[in-house]
């Protein structure tokens, strides 16, 4: 039953697969050699079982007393047992009974566990509480002893014991289903269906059941295997129905005669091993097929940029980028006189190798520089490559990313030399955390929930600055005061979940400046915050930047934030640098059409209730915005 835990995990992860995805899952299953093997084995055994009456030369209990424990020959191809019964025939009829009883067990377990799990997961409340109690009781019962008791009370029936075992094992379905349903119960599309007036039954059938289906199939494969093992185990102990041929009864028979005819033991054992192994392999293959789908899902969630190479890690690039690098060499060589720039990015190109050997460029020929005490804003929409550019400076690109062109220098030294294909981790490890630091977008997900805020501030300082813990603690408290936290001691001892989002972002800013960096890379540092909190954080950033005279690269999509903080702005689109200039130039007199479009989309200063972009049909509603009219430019992901 330990399977129920990780299959439940799968079900949560694959919570969004469903009907249409299933066809690809099937295809992926058939591409997997393990999947094909499992299906072949199970298919053959099932076929043999179905055709048992035709294929078997003898009745299951037909005994030829004169021919006991015979070796294989033409009439009894697998020999006979101690009562002179044909092993091959008994194996076939045994398959029938064994498989059917396993199905019965799984069927009973599903019939109880699935509806109960659906109801408990969807409605929660009292039903869930009560059924949880029942499930806990069922799970605490010692299964084998219950089965022995039932055998004693109701006699040696395979069916009764399998029904009982089905009931005992139903909690695994219940828990699996409930977990899967809970993960989608509050999805917005379920809410939308409720608003549409769909009945609960239709919502469950249409939107919820599809989520449960795949994990149930996996679980059933595992449960059927367990059922066969348990049932055979009972019969092996001699508790089965001796008048029925099953693999367990055969096993018991073989064991009694193990010194006379060891092969008697072999056939039922082989049949069981193949069936159970086939079921386990099938379950694994289905799980693998589903997990592949999961990867694709992740891909689309991230910005289109970072995603593309995810599946093709390790594909080596071809000669193309090398050539591109050579042509850049001349540019990179002219470096004297640029040492005073804190950061200088020259002709940077970042790409992800594709399955077909080509490289998808997400940053293309980007050049800019940042001086000490200067704030450069990089503005763009999602997929513009702005974060990828920032991560190249930090050296935090995904493993499969390639620097296909250009160079990055920090304080007169290359972190990415013109020849390099990757960011030199060796060179950057010395800088990161000390001279270059990072403020992320999501404050909460960038603090480890398992450690106190104080611990997370102190540890890097001890490592990087080589100061004592006590000294680092003093420093951390001072930093927390500096970033405007009223009660630094309390925050120092708090866990991340105990502070608000704005507070967490202040903590991260404190962490970023704790080792007195020269450059701070801030990736959308205020996007996840409320406007009033954003204003406070912007004030804080400005004050710290001026006081410490650090260079800042601020990645953002918000022109208001740019106007508030930045000295210079670089506008990016589709991986290219569209325009760069001082903040006044860019915001007041943008030269490029794209920048104009972006600024034109700002709502500030617009006449309310008027069209911002010219409508798809009909006249332009607002003359002023006419030049912002662009074709629908939402790329299909």
């Amino acid at each position: 039953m330990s399977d129920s835990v990780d299959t439940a995990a799968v079900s949560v992860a694959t919570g969004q697969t469903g009907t249409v995805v299933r066809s690809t899952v099937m295809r992926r299953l058939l591409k997997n050699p393990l999947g094909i093997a499992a299906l072949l084995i199970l298919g053959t055994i099932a076929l043999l079982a179905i055709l048992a009456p035709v294929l078997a030369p003898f009745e299951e209990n037909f005994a030829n007393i004169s021919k006991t424990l015979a070796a294989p020959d033409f009439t009894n191809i697998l020999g006979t047992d101690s009562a002179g019964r044909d092993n091959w025939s008994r194996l076939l009829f045994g398959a029938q009974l064994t498989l059917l009883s396993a199905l019965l067990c799984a069927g009973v377990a599903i019939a109880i566990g699935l509806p109960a799990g659906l109801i408990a997961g969807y409605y929660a409340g009292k039903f869930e509480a009560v059924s949880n109690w029942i499930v806990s009781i069922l799970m605490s019962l010692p299964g084998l002893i219950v089965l022995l008791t039932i055998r004693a009370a109701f006699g040696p029936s395979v069916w009764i014991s399998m029904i009982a075992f089905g009931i005992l094992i139903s909690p695994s379905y219940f828990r699996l289903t409930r977990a899967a349903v809970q993960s989608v119960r509050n999805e917005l599309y379920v809410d939308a269906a409720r608003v549409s007036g769909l009945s609960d039954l239709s919502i469950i059938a249409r939107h919820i059941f599809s989520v449960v289906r795949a994990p149930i199939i996996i679980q059933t494969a595992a449960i059927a295997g367990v059922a066969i093992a348990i049932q055979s185990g009972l019969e092996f102990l001699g508790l089965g129905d001796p008048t029925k041929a099953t693999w367990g009864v055969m096993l018991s028979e073989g064991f009694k005669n193990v010194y006379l005819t060891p092969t008697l033991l072999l056939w039922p054992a082989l049949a069981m091993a193949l069936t159970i192994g086939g079921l386990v392999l099938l379950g694994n293959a289905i799980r693998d097929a589903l997990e592949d789908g999961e990867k694709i899902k992740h891909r689309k969630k991230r910005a289109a940029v970072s995603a593309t190479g995810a599946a093709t890690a390790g594909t080596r690039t071809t000669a193309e980028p090398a050539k591109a690098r050579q042509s850049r060499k001349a540019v990179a060589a002219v470096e004297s006189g640029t040492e005073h720039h804190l950061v200088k990015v020259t002709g940077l190109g970042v790409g992800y190798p594709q399955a077909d050997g080509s490289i998808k460029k997400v940053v293309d020929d980007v050049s800019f520089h940042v001086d000490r005490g200067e704030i450069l804003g990089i503005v763009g929409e999602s997929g513009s490559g702005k974060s990828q550019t920032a991560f190249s400076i930090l050296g935090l690109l995904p493993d499969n990313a390639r620097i296909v062109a250009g160079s990055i220098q920090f304080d007169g030294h290359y972190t990415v030399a013109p020849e390099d294909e990757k960011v030199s981790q060796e060179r950057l490890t010395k800088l990161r955390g000390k001279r270059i630091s990072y403020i992320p977008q999501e404050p909460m997900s960038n603090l480890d929930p398992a450690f106190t805020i104080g611990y997370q501030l102190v540890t890097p300082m001890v490592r990087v600055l080589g100061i004592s813990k006590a000294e680092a603690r003093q420093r951390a408290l001072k930093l927390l005061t500096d970033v405007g936290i009223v009660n630094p001691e309390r925050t120092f001892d708090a866990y991340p979940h105990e502070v608000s989002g704005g507070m967490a972002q202040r903590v991260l800013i404190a962490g970023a400046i704790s080792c007195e960096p020269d450059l701070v890379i801030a990736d959308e540092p205020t996007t996840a915050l409320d406007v009033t909190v954003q204003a406070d954080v912007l004030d804080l950033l400005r004050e710290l930047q001026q006081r410490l005279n650090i260079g800042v690269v601020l990645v953002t999509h918000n022109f208001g934030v740019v106007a508030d903080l930045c000295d210079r702005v670089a506008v990016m689109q589709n991986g290219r640098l569209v325009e760069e200039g001082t903040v006044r130039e860019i915001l007041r007199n943008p030269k490029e059409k794209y920048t104009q479009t972006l600024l034109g989309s700002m709502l500030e200063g617009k006449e309310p209730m008027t069209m911002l972009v010219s409508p798809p049909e009909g006249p332009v509603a607002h003359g002023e915005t006419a030049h912002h009219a662009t074709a629908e430019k939402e790329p299909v992901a």
Partner: protein
Amino acid sequence: MSTPAASQHTPPLLSVENLVVEYPSKKFRAKPFRALTDINITIGQGETLGLVGESGSGKTTLGRAVLGLAPVTQGKVIFEGNDISNASRRERRTLSRDLQVVFQDPYTSLNPALEIGDILAEPLAVQGLDKETARKRVKELLDQVGLPSDAVHRLPREFSGGQRQRVAIARALALSPKLIVCDEPVSALDLSTQARVLDLFLQIQKDTGVSYLFVSHDLDVVRHISHRVAVMFRGEIVEQGPAETVTRNPEHPYTQRLLLASPVPDPDRQEQRRADRHRLLEQQRQQTEQAGAAA
């Protein structure tokens, strides 16, 4: 059910009266969590009420209470003269013709396993439309929101955020509702996409006369699309009135702070706004101190 309000000449499409929403606490016998306190709003025919506030202010809960997705503890939600605060599922089904929703996150508001055509046909099927009529209507809807008609057989994941939000809007429009609750429908979108989706909302209102309850955290968005604006703070409405007044000359200290906190895209004007904001904060701090001293 209940009779329409006779005292008014044109009763509002939606009116929420003294609404309280409480969520039972997880802890045994603990006091329930009060998400909304004494909410009063009205929305007329073809009118947009903007609802602005920060995270946790209860603005989303108010939208959900109107839709019947949040429990109404006290007070009334009156739609076209009928109290719908505790409508049954059957009544909701009738109501869904007139009352629809567009959610914030276009990635989770569409079932990833269903084709766009099926998603759009769902509300139609609930109302008992036959397949052929539904198919025609789906085509109309895609056209109305500016999506290609071959989108019918594609999956949500094949579309960008903006296009998904168009699908969600099309689903809301399917039954030609009278009121659409829009819960942060543009906050997950890029700037230029946001502009186009806002245009679409305005165009639809112009064409169909639908009313919106438009929930957003962005004062600029709310100012742009609303006739009237209500500001929420800690589960209460602290200020409401005509959009221009509330979003340009707010009276409540919180709205004032909110207005001055939102940065403007010009360095010099932003510097001015920043200074104004600091002055306002200082002034409000002194007022609180004085009030504290007086008490």
